[in-house]
């Protein structure tokens, strides 16, 4: 088969778009993880659980506001804020006391939180899965290249770059962003200059967790919100962050692109074993660039 005509065929192009919409979700969550990893040097294992809480919260908020389009927008607005508030409480109550301690302590603490949040979700929302109704506005599909492309995925393709731009602005153009970048490189110096490093860490942690919650809220209408979402996602998020370079947000974008596209194209090329493609890509990338594709901040 002519390789050019295959690549430009409607099936492949449509699948690329689907892969990109998956990339958006992965990027939003992985960028939060990367941010926390870069500045606080904590591998936040609880990130997946916060993503799951974001999704469940979206379900509850959407129900409180009666479902439909208002319910959906309120969910996307409020759920990440609630998740961020939860992470703020966790940070102020426990995390900030351990910044001076051994690094491994914080790592274990996030793992503990991952388990606690996981069971918290089971306690609060029960073991059955939940469905967030897709608002009528987003239902259905529009023909792209002659094939049906879900409208909601189109919406995600718009949200992705928006979040990326806002994140870039925060990190590069705000004072807090500059301070946190400095703290990522040399936290002791930042403290010596008189800046409250603890507050910087809290801000960055909350922003990172907000992103996890946002990812969860955005993905809620297209997947079934269920226990176990956290486990699948945290592995993917970590692989993406490692692939892209630890602490590097653009690396997270690159990693998410590779992961999302290989996943959707793999399904097209080899449907029976499509799920191995992203992991194979990780192996390939890490064999050639063990420290990640882009420069890491560690």
């Amino acid at each position, binding site marked *: 088969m002519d390789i050019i005509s295959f690549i430009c065929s409607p099936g492949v192009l449509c699948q690329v778009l689907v892969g990109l919409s*998956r990339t958006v979700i992965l990027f939003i969550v992985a960028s939060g993880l990367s941010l926390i990893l870069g500045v606080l040097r904590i591998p936040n294992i609880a990130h997946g659980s916060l993503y799951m809480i974001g999704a469940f919260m979206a379900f509850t908020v959407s129900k409180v506001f009666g479902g439909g389009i208002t319910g959906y927008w309120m969910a996307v607005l409020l759920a990440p804020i609630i998740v961020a508030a939860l992470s703020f409480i966790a940070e102020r109550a426990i995390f900030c006391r351990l910044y001076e301690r051994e690094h491994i302590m914080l790592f274990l603490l996030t793992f503990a939180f991952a388990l606690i949040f996981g069971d918290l979700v089971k306690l609060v929302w029960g073991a059955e899965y939940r469905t967030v109704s897709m608002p009528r506005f987003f239902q259905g599909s529009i023909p792209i290249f002659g094939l049906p492309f879900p409208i909601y995925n189109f919406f995600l393709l718009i949200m992705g770059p928006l979040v990326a731009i806002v994140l870039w602005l925060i990190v590069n153009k705000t004072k807090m962003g500059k301070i946190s970048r400095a703290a990522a490189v040399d936290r002791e110096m930042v403290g010596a200059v008189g800046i409250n490093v603890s507050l910087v860490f809290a801000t960055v942690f909350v922003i990172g967790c907000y992103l996890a919650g946002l990812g969860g809220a955005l993905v809620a209408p297209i997947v079934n919100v269920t226990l176990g979402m956290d486990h699948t996602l945290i592995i993917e998020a970590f692989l993406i962050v490692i692939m892209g370079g630890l602490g590097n947000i653009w690396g997270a974008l690159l990693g998410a692109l590779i992961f999302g596209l290989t996943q959707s194209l793999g399904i097209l090329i080899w449907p029976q074993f499509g799920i191995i493609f992203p992991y194979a890509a990780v192996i390939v990338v890490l064999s050639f660039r063990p420290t990640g594709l882009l420069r890491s901040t560690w």
Partner: protein
Amino acid sequence: MKRLLLLLSFGLLGLVLVVVSSHAANTIKVGIVDTYSGPPAAYSQDVVDGFKMARDKINAKGGVLGRKIEYTTRDEKFKPDVGLAMAKELVMKENVDILAGTINSATALAISDFVKKEKIPFFVSNAKSDRITGQMGHRYVFSTNENTAMAGKAAAVALAKMPFTKYWIAGDDYEFGHAIGDGVWNNLKALKPSVQLLGQTWWKVGETDFTPYITAIVAAKPDFIIVATGGSGMVNFQKAAKATGLADKIPFYQHTAIEVTVGQALGMDAPEGVYGTANYLFYYPDTPANKAFAAEFKKLYGRYPKMTALYGYITAEFVARGFQKAGSMNKEKFIDAVEGMVLNDTPVGKMEMRKCDHQVTLPMFWGVTKKSPEYKDFLIAGDLVTIPASEYMPTCEQVLKTRGK
């Protein structure tokens, strides 16, 4: 200190022995291993409730052989290794007389292998792999629900009459998924040799995002999709199908797509025009026995019975009548009594526990999901066709041949 510790441990041991030995031995104990967490839980709860409904009636009449029927449940969380461990615990520690369960076909096969050695009767109430009573069947395992060979043949009988020729198979990558996919396809190919299989797609069990799979399948342009999803994937797939508009473009079939469990889980979000097979619908056929069963269930539990309620119910009936007919607690006599037993007054009419493979004969219904003016909360099955057991169940000869006899 050491002496005190030794004394305490002996005392504890003694206490434990006393407690264990004072276990009431005057009951018929049934141990149910099933998945009570996650998406499959929606099915499993009805098995227990159906079982309980029958058991309470039996106990009210004085029980069986002067004993009451007791049951206990264990959650295997849809993991075969956990399920097997639970089954072992039930047999060795709780001393159950009968095992029952589970929705996971892989667990059912593992437990079936276990009871073969332990010689304890095991009623498979919700796992549908045809290997359970087929290839891997034996004296100690019974099935009170339909299996994939049966569903597959029934679906193939219906699909052979339809004009579709280009098929695609997609489903959950585990025992049940492959079994139902193969079941439908092999029978369809036999009945209508002109059908073509364009390709197959298998995703991991518990996959939540079907959009990339659906777009890939649509790109291949089949006429019809055989969707081989199990308890976890049923509802997710229909939801994704509605969201992507798949149901309007390419028709697809799922075993139990028309059944109430899936319908209620999705509510009015469910897509119309989905083909499916099911063994029990509380509203069809509209016989007095079925109406009474559904009404009684609704009164007790506040909801309509799902198909799994029927399975739980008939399991209790077989257990009770088996021991009654055997006249003793001897398990071998029990098995001899249950083999070939006919129940005449079930909600779906007459059914028989076949002696040759320990498979119960159930009627099968084929239909299409559609909205109903009568039920506002979920879609029901329309254009229903009843396929009697004799038309679609594999014959005893066919089953025994797979066992290599």
